């Protein structure tokens, strides 16, 4: 076991950290949020110039060939800066799906321009009734001459408003598994309704009415995208844990600093033991979250197994609980100031809480873990 970063990894972490610090001050972030695009194309260009957009993409497709560890290093800094760009959904999740399911031609056609940052992707896998279960999609894909016709309503597609290509889940007929299609959002029959999410990044709903896609829009075998979706959601949630970790570290730092400066009753409020203990608890949870983020990063690219699934579920569970605790308590320990739009802390709190609403919340992962729980023989005999 080795918890140290190698030289190259340390350089990557430093580069992203510096870039975020220099270009993503809180006021700039607010300006990006208020702009019509809702993010910073300039920042995205810089990420691309430094090769950061290529980190999760395989070297065969002009990527950097990073693993879960490299993704973690990038996402942690993007989380610390509350960045609004759809890195997680485009570079990690969507690109991962294409890498895993796509044909060589599809990969060659799409991935290099994703690695360079020119092409943005998004995944449309949630619907009104899916709620973290993309395999329950009710969108339909009806075979037609030289392709398919897609219909249905997709919800909260993060980064979907900007994406040049959207990966859409649909099923061909009842009882069949889910399939994945490449969709050009400019195609006839697609309508996008964009909006900001409460934690900042923009998303959209997609209405698909009998949208024609060509035969080669299908990624991977028909009806068999379920396992790849589950596997790639695992990679995405590992990266998302890192995003949360960066944000938690920053929220914790701001709160600690505040406790040392805010004076009430003639002393810094950090002198009050009740608050000291609260901070100590938060610090403990933060430490657990850090460990689980590292664990998740290290197993994210392992071959599929129940052990990998268990560890990823455990990571998201622990990180989601820590995120909520740190979000709620940092506001509480700040008093009124912690609730104001003008202060970055409130936005960290929102990001931390709302990250639990993507790729499964604590309850979802508690369920996943319970289902995979290893029961020693002896215990099952006792129960019987």
């Amino acid at each position, binding site marked *: 076991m080795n918890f140290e970063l190698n030289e190259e990894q340390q350089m990557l972490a430093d580069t992203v950290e510096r870039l975020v610090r220099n270009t993503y001050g809180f006021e700039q972030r607010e300006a990006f949020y208020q702009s019509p695009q809702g993010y910073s194309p300039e920042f995205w260009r810089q990420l691309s110039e430094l090769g950061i957009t290529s980190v999760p993409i395989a070297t065969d497709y002009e990527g950097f060939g990073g693993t879960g560890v490299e993704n973690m290093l990038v996402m942690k800094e993007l989380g610390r800066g509350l960045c609004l760009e759809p890195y997680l959904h485009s570079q990690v999740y969507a690109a991962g799906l294409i890498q895993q399911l796509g044909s060589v031609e599809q990969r060659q056609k799409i991935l290099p321009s994703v690695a360079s940052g020119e092409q943005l992707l998004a995944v449309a896998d949630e619907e*009104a009734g*899916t709620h973290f279960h993309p395999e329950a999609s009710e969108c339909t894909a009806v075979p037609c001459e030289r392709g398919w016709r897609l219909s249905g309503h997709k*919800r*909260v597609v993060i980064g979907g408003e900007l994406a040049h290509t959207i990966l859409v889940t649909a099923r061909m007929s009842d009882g069949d598994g889910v399939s994945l299609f490449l969709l050009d959002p400019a195609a006839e029959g697609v309508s996008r309704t964009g909006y900001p999410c*409460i934690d900042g990044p923009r*998303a959209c709903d997609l209405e698909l009415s009998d949208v024609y896609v060509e035969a080669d829009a299908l990624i991977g075998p028909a009806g068999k995208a379920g396992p790849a979706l589950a596997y790639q959601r695992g990679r995405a949630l590992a990266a998302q844990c890192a995003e949360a970790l960066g944000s938690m570290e920053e929220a914790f730092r701001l709160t600690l600093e505040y406790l040392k400066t805010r004076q009430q009753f003639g002393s810094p409020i950090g002198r009050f033991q*009740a608050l000291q203990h609260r901070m100590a608890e938060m610090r403990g949870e933060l430490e657990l979250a850090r460990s689980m983020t590292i664990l998740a990063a290290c197993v994210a690219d392992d071959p599929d197994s129940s052990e990998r699934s268990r560890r990823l579920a455990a990571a998201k569970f622990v990180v989601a609980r820590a995120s909520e605790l740190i979000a709620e308590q940092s*506001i*509480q320990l700040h008093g009124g100031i912690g609730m104001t739009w003008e202060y970055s802390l409130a936005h960290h709190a929102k990001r931390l809480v709302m990250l639990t609403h993507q790729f499964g919340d604590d309850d979802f992962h*508690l369920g996943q873990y319970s289902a995979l729980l290893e029961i020693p023989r002896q215990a099952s005999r006792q129960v019987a």
Partner: protein
Amino acid sequence: MDIHFTPEELAFRSEVRAFLEQNLPADIAEKVRLGRRLSKEDHQRWQKILNKQGWYAVNWPVEYGGTGWSVVQKHIFDEECAAAGAPRLVAFGVNMVAPVIIKFGTQAQKDYYLPRILRSEDWWCQGYSEPGAGSDLASLKTRAERDGDHYVVNGQKTWTTLGQHANRIFCLVRTDPSAKKQEGISFLLIDMDTPGITVRPIITLDGEHEVNEVFFDNVRVPVENLVGEENKGWTCAKYLLTHERTGQAGIGLSKAALAHLKDIAGAETVAGRPLIDDPLFRARIAEVEMRLMAVEMSTLRILAATRDGGVPGAESSLLKIQGSEIRQAISGLMRKALGPNALPFLEPELEPEFDGEPLYRDYSASPASQYFNLRKLSIYGGSNEIQKNIIAKQVLEL
């Protein structure tokens, strides 16, 4: 001992329910149910309806236009109002400054201000907190200096809830800077139209304009606007805070929120099945419901034990903590029930005027915003940490 309601109490409940059915405007109830913002006009419309019935000043003595209701009646009234979707009353006038005026004010103050509150002619806001004086309220610095038959007020208040609607503010001001902290403070009633007052919005994390900063620059306030004695304002301030806290247990609101949560959990589906059928989520709801039951019983029990109009002492701190934590827990489950559908931030759908098609469901726009907004419950009216300090000191004598 008998925890059942008496036949009189049950009859009272029916009377309240019938009144609400006939008089609560449907558009207002709808906004409340869906967690939309309410306009000033919405609040005033409802206050006037209640006042016409004689049910607005629930906590006032009968001789001033109050109801004279028992603790149990007030509880039933709150519960029915919340269940029907009546707006939560903005407390600053009717339930904060009025009890202070009744207890400490001059006859002239009572004659002038109380009827204006009853008729919704005045909208009051609360000028206690300052940038440097939050939990440590007694360290407030806003200065009032005597100049003939006026006080001249200079300083700043902050977190002033709905100050943008108000035409009056009650303020704690320092009249004797040389005295010990609590002893040089006075309680002043100030007209918001007086020259020298500036109100600036503070936007909260949910994008809402609910609180403000209020600046005072040589504001001249007639001396007859002093309530109680000069330098004895802390007594008024504390009296008001116990009133404020008691109202904050918010049992009726929690019950209404819980019912709404069940509706949402019934309507949302997880992998095609109603969320309410998910055993884990169901258990989460059951857990808050059981706790709420305990908090409700405790509130009734503690309030019933008090004599002077249902204002207990340090016990109100216990109720404030429990009540606020339950409400926050329910708001957390409400957001959680929506899963990914909680993410969109649809401000137009939260506005009082909104009558368009919702992006998703009519109930889906507000839970996440509400959850963040309700963080305030454990901060204001004396933070939950301060309540615990009070319990440690006054109840436990530690």
